[in-house]
């Protein structure tokens, strides 16, 4: 039976080399180039591969963001995703993982009501906020099972999936009932580049837009108002003390000096 897949993505700065506005104590995002969060490429690719594995399957890219986040959805379409939905509006500004996942869950629920969803795929984390919480939190809002750190979807049908979860000490095979949310890691696949046909489709794609009211959410449940945490200040990390170049006539001399210093400083 064909699968109905949702893949959640984020439009993020294309670089992590950002600076802080000392007046506001916040990262300067104005003028930065944005793109599809690199970790989401793996989730998008996996959705496309599932479509290839299970003919007739359908995949929708979903994001929450400004109007410009439309670009991340089109990037997903160019890579083989069928449809796109954007959760947007000023009420969503300043959200944290708690309020953002709540809105994403409401959007998944809306798609689910239109046509039952089997899988919601996520990247490992975003390259800006880095928390890696939104995928599993979205599952929690939906009261669906979730598996994070997935490196392989071994088998899947409309009722269940068997996936490989990469742990710190090895790999667990986890059986999960569907619908469920799955957060992927880099090992799951090697994303392909957009095809010419995909790029054409991306240009023409119709992006569905939803505000809080469309999702049955109150303004106080989303964005900064619905957040459970706030970032009070951002700053560059403390700079490292100046290092020391180890001099010596030969590589062996330098190596011996290195060991001397490591022992002297009780590092080893």
């Amino acid at each position, binding site marked *: 039976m064909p699968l109905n897949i949702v893949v959640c993505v984020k439009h993020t700065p294309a670089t992590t080399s950002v600076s*802080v506005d000392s007046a506001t104590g916040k990262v300067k995002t104005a003028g930065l180039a944005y793109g599809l969060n690199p970790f989401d490429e793996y989730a998008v690719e996996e959705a496309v591969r599932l479509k290839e594995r299970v003919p007739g399957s359908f995949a929708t890219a979903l994001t929450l963001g400004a109007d410009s986040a439309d670009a991340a959805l089109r990037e997903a379409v160019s890579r083989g995703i069928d449809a796109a939905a954007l959760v947007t509006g000023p009420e969503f500004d300043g959200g944290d993982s708690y309020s953002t996942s709540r809105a994403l869950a409401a959007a998944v629920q809306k798609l689910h009501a239109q046509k039952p969803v089997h899988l919601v795929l996520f990247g490992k984390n975003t390259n800006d906020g880095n928390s890696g919480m939104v995928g599993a*939190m979205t599952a929690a809002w939906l009261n669906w099972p979730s598996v994070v750190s997935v490196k392989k979807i071994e088998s899947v049908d409309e009722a269940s999936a068997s996936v490989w979860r990469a742990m710190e000490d090895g*790999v667990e*095979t986890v059986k999960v009932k569907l619908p469920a949310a799955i957060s992927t890691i880099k090992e799951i696949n090697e994303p392909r580049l957009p095809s010419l046909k995909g790029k054409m489709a991306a240009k023409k794609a119709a992006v569905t837009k939803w505000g809080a009211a469309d999702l049955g959410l109150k303004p106080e449940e989303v964005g900064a108002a619905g957040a459970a945490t706030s970032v*009070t200040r*951002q700053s560059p*990390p403390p700079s490292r003390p100046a*290092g020391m170049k180890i001099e010596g006539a030969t*590589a062996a001399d330098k190596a011996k000096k290195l060991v001397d210093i490591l022992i002297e400083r009780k590092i080893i």
Partner: protein
Amino acid sequence: MAGEKNVLIVAVPQRGALPPAVFELITAAKKAAAATGGTVSALVFGTKAADFAKQLGERGAEKVLTVSDAAYDSFVDEAYAAATAAAAKQEAAGVLLLAASVAGRSLAARLSVLLKAGVAAEICEISGSGGALSAKRYQYGGNIVAEVAFKSDVKILTVQPMCFEAAPVEAGKAAQTTPLSVPAASAGAQVASFKADEAGEIDLGAAERIVSGGRGLGNADGFKLIRELAHTLGAAVGASRAVVDAGWIAYRHQVGLTGRTVHPKLYVACGISGQIQHLAGMASSANIVAVNTDPACPMMDIATLGVVGDVYEVLPVVISEIKKRRGA
């Protein structure tokens, strides 16, 4: 800043043992409790719960709740979340601390929604006073430090390994242990099997020392030398993205933005020039040693100790010198 002020350590076991990061949570919890003015208790799971309680007690935990059910011997977020919510209620805990492991992150997300609690994820510092609590964490791949405050009554923090000292064993200390009965939770996921990584490997996240190799090794065989130095130092083996992508070593060794974030006491970067994406994962290491033929590479700039030279000439001497001094 309403909310209960007591602190609960959620100690998720792995393969029948407590990961070392759990002992670091005791230290973090004391810091959090000092800020909120509350008490600290811990929650342990599974058939070895009584043993885990003893281990935590020896390291200064005063009160431990045990959920001694075999159903908790493998990790499923839904079951763990239900038990943790029951413990938090019983202990009037408003601050929950978890290790930022795969399981810890998964559980924190489930608890967040269940307890209407904000999450400060992968934090490396806790501060606050007079009931308020805030935490510091890295964003933008280590290029930004963010200070996170809570708006929710219940506050969840996942703590990066190696950011707090492990609480030491103190002779004669023991915890007051209380069994916690929780209704069996239904879960949509279950662990069917487990395949361990290579035996004897030290996990990157919990390693005090890491020896990493990059492109400068020239080929996959270079990792024999990296492993030899790592073995000599009792260190874990790391790698740059380039060599993982080239297939020289498995992904689980990758340090950096798309790999693991590490904070060891010693990071030895061998033939790694220091792409931003790699530095993101290790630049906060306490001591960095760079061995590279290029004196101008970014890794040299951030190194505590820099050796300009060929890894194949430098490392064998480092290995033999360390062995010699230990033997002496």
